[in-house]
């Protein structure tokens, strides 16, 4: 546990020691702002809630989270520091979870910096802040899910571009799995998969958080989703660390 936090602390410090943190946070906030206010018709809707904000957040994460995770392991491989890190007396699991927690903590910081949206909507009306809090929790879990995918895929390559594209593609699949385009196509051809697609979809789970519903089965879903990918990450590191 202690080692996990030491790794996470170092990793998180790394984001802020380089322009990565500043660039990511600025782009995230600008993109999220533009989408919410312009495409989302935040003001014209005349409703005191953050629905437009939360509608766009999985898509913004889809684009930006792979940009964080692509360097997570690929960079260690390229610099050779993976050899240093994994010959220190820590287990691979501690290293994997530590790096993941750092990236997740970083996303949480970026997410927390969207607080002006909450202030704005509270100034303009009387929103249900419980629903907003539940939406934020959902957003954080979506970020965690995408991060775990990106982290595992980053471990499989030393090329950051490949890590980025793979993570984007896989996260996209999980994001759109419940969309009618996909489910209708699947139910026409393989009905079994259509039901499965709906169940593994990140977007569908997130939607219930934005309605203010925090269901145990959704929490279990995100926990097992993240757990699965981090386990895969550890296995990939174990088998390919020296490649």
């Amino acid at each position: 546990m202690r080692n996990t936090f030491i790794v996470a602390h170092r990793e998180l410090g790394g984001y802020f020691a380089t322009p990565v943190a500043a660039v990511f946070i600025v782009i995230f906030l600008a993109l999220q702002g533009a989408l919410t206010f312009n495409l989302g018709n935040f003001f014209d809707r005349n409703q005191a809630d953050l629905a437009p904000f939360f509608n766009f957040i999985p898509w913004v994460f889809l684009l930006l989270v792979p940009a964080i995770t692509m360097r997570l392991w690929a960079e260690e491989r390229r610099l050779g520091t993976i050899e240093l890190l994994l010959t220190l007396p820590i287990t691979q699991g501690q290293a994997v979870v530590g790096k993941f927690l750092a990236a997740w903590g970083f996303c949480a910081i970026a997410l927390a910096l969207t607080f002006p949206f909450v202030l704005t909507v509270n100034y303009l009306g009387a929103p249900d802040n419980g629903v907003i809090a539940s939406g934020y929790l959902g957003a954080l879990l979506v970020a965690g899910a995408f991060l775990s995918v990106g982290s595992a895929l980053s471990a499989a390559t030393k090329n950051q571009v490949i890590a980025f594209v793979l993570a984007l593609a896989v996260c996209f699949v999980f994001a759109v799995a419940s969309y009618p385009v996909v489910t209708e196509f699947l139910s026409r051809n393989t009905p079994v998969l259509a039901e499965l697609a709906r169940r593994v979809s990140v977007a569908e789970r997130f939607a219930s958080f934005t309605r203010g519903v925090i269901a145990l089965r959704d929490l279990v879903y995100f926990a097992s989703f993240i757990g699965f990918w981090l386990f895969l990450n550890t296995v990939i590191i174990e088998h390919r660390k020296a490649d």
Partner: protein
Amino acid sequence: MAALIEIEGLTKRFGAFVAVDNISFNVERGEVLGFLGPNGAGKSTTMRMLAGFMTPSSGTARICGHDVRTRSLAARKSLGFLPEGAPTYPEMTVLAFLQFCGRIRGFSGAELGRRVDRAVAMTTLAGVRLQPVETLSKGFKRRVGLAQALLHDPEVLILDEPTDGLDPNQKHEVRKLIAEMRAEKAIVISTHILEEVDAVCTRAIIIANGRIVADATPSELQLRAASGKLDDVFRDLTLPKAA
């Protein structure tokens, strides 16, 4: 008492290619073993297996009695390892980097400060403690890697090309340091510089194509060539015999 490093039938295969072929030897306390061989002979692969970064295909090694296959964590705790090229996190300062390694090694508070100060003093890094590693010259980077390996005062030191890229004065310093530490440790260094073997090693092993071709003291090795030069012995042993 058993030797600090015991290697038994250590073998590493990459597909059909045998990088390290059934190597066995022991290193006792007080020995400085020079590990020589042409590029690609299997030096780094052997050292990586000792440090727990690569898993042997067969055979094993014990560091202070801890098997690297079954008690990897305990083996890594008793070992200081300088990976090839001395990789370090470029954005961290020397001090932050050493503190990170020290924390992972289980030190904290005043003890951590003392350990870091000691390692900094031994490798004469005091002047650059607060500089990011990426701004340092090659020689300094190498010493940062060395300082990291010395933090916990391990009984076993595995140094992959510790003097590569250092100027003659720095080389002299590192050799002096190794000679000073010799009495209470078992040290393995790999090198291309044959004069170094003469200067610091009590014993030399030459490997070629993954096999040990010579294991003797430097002065014994010199006697094997008519010229009495290590260079000639090295060429004799590692070049394919002209038929």
